[in-house]
């Protein structure tokens, strides 16, 4: 997989290997926070930002700290700490310098730490042995793909308020079905390029 063009990887991680619709990552906040388009977009941007940077940080940590010291099996702990620390840092900076944005994101920023898409991308990067540029493209593309999916879902959910959904399906159930239909739609892209 090492010879994949970064641009191809970027496109693929948005469409054919979308984090939510093909890899099922970051589902919790995807389902819980997708009530309106504006919040979803804000969360999506935050996720994209954190995802891109933590992927890069983890790439360096893995390549220059863990591998030379033969400590690959500690990667879960190291990755989650670096993600948590980065999110904390971003939160402090945003709170200090961009209070408006901080107010808009509110509780979602710290919650990004436990968004499995972030840790997932770092782990995929390790398993698939991406180079630096590839990791960057993959991280950024995954973030964009995640944002696109959650905004689309928020838009669809808005329409749902006016429809009559069977009682047992309301909430989680209908969201899963909509997501399934979206996944079905995205499968139409699968002729383009496949990364696995």
């Amino acid at each position: 997989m090492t010879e994949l063009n970064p641009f191809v990887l970027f496109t693929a991680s948005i469409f054919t290997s979308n984090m939510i619709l093909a890899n099922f990552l970051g589902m919790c906040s995807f389902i819980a926070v997708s009530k309106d388009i504006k919040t979803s977009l804000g969360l999506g941007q935050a996720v994209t930002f954190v995802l891109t940077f933590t992927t890069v940080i983890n790439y360096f940590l893995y390549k220059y700290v863990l591998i030379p010291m033969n400590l690959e099996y500690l990667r879960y702990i190291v990755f989650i700490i670096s993600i948590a620390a980065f999110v904390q840092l971003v939160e402090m900076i945003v709170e200090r310098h961009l209070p408006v944005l901080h107010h808009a994101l509110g509780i979602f920023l710290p919650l990004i730490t436990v968004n499995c898409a972030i840790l997932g991308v770092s782990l995929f990067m390790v398993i698939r042995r991406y180079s630096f540029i590839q990791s960057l493209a993959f991280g950024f593309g995954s973030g964009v793909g995640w944002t696109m999916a959650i905004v689309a879902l928020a838009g669809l959910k808005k329409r749902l308020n006016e429809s009559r959904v069977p009682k047992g399906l309301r909430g989680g159930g209908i969201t899963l079905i909509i997501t399934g239909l979206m996944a079905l739609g995205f499968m139409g892209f699968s002729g383009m390029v496949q990364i696995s």
Partner: protein
Amino acid sequence: MAKLKARDVFIMGIWKENPVVVQVLGICSALAVTNRMSNAFVMGVGLIFVTAFSELTVSLLRRYTPKHIRMMVQVLIISAFVIIVDIYLKAYLPTVSKALGPYVGLIITNCIIMGRCEVFAQKNRPVISFLDGIFNGIGYTAVLLIVAFARELLGFGTLFGIPVMGSGWTNWVIMIMPPGAFFMLALVVWGVNTLRDRREISESAEEAKAR
């Protein structure tokens, strides 16, 4: 807080507050690993192990953990147990380990474990926390196995890798693709919620009669 009995914890974890179906938590892995029963089973056992022991440890340490860093401590405890599971799988079940890929590591960010540590283990005694972890894990595993049963049966015509549908069977490829996972889980959620509603209605009707 009133003392909780093991039986209540059992009912809550598996039926009343089933982490996957009722709270729609931790479903990333529930969707991703359910294309084969064996994967779902291994994942479920791994999760039961991690949840139970993390809750036990968090509960044992609950008096000594400073409040504002408790999340960090919890994450570290969970990661430690996940590493054990990962190393074990790599050594004894390499094929399953490969099939599960990054999803073993993603047990760390499974909201069920964090949620139970924060909500339950932080406030309760070690033994009951341990049981709570086991029962919540079983509740999760049960849903995984139901979804995996349908997906593997319809998608591959096999169960635990053994062909059961006969030679005339055409595989429903959609069931092993991502959309199949979403639809199947949605159906399970729908079924359970409908059952629960019906039971609640009949319970309240009985109460009214008793009055």
